[in-house]
């Protein structure tokens, strides 16, 4: 190993070596949020490049987030919507009375 390669390996291990899987997992939200510092990002990506388990975990997290994004909204009972439209019509006719107590106060 030449001096140069040795030095390069030392730099690589300095950048990536002290990031464990646990630390990598803990940085995942910050990574997905784009809020890692440059140094953290380099260490994170180097770790990920070397670790299939962390790559799988990141994929699982992304899949979880994407599934959350596609959850259908909570169903709202039709009477709530009807009641709202009634109140809307009253408000439209007489906006000043709109502050009549909403809901069961």
């Amino acid at each position, binding site marked *: 190993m030449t001096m140069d390669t040795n030095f390069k390996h030392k730099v690589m291990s300095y950048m990536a070596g002290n990031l464990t*899987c*646990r630390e990598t997992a*803990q940085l995942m939200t910050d990574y997905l949020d784009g809020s890692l510092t440059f140094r953290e990002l380099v260490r994170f990506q180097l770790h990920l490049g070397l670790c*299939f388990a962390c790559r799988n975990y990141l994929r*699982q997290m992304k899949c979880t987030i994407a599934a959350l994004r*596609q*959850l259908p*909204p909570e169903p709202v009972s039709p009477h709530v919507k009807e009641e*709202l439209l009634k109140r809307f019509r009253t408000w439209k006719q007489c906006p000043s009375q709109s502050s009549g107590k909403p809901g069961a106060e």
Partner: protein
Amino acid sequence: MLDRLNLDEPGLIQALQAGDERVFAAVVDWYSGSLLRLALSYVPSRAVAEEVVQETWMGVFEGIHRFERRSSFKTWLFRILTNRAKTRGIRERRYEPFGPSGSSLDADEGPSLEDALFVAEGSGMGHWNEPPQAWEPDTPERVLLSKECRAAIEQAIERLPATQRQVIILRDIEGVSSEEICNILEISKTHQRVLLHRARTKVRRELAPYVQGDKT
């Protein structure tokens, strides 16, 4: 939603200010489910949460003429809801801003749940106890096709501490930006990220047993 109404956001606000019932009905249809989900994290029952949603829409009538577009309509809507839901939750003794389910303590609930996934000591310290495997199905569409997976996600969200639940609903389900969430929930950016990470970790864990290839 705006596309379907053929409106941009300023157009939507103008239509609401002018009392356009068609637009109001569409907006109610579109957002009430999202509002209800968030309201359920503040109050003890669906009935009370539905009342909070109604109160929120009443707040929209009262405030739409004063709406200054300093935030998006959606953020403004969530902000009205959280104010009303907090008041209501405190009255129902469910929501305690400085109590165990409140904002500041959610982040300090003890060691992160992730700790259990890793070797705690010795030469393998910090490495996976059981390395995560690839999921199957691994696309959100196919995950959500499974009733068990969907129920696992819904239940995981319900079981989260209040502020973690609010953050994950706003960020991941509703797609609200981090900045807007900090504004809506009145928390710092760092706190928001800690809460979000904890919430995501728990939801992933609850989902894992229902997805092939993983037991973590």
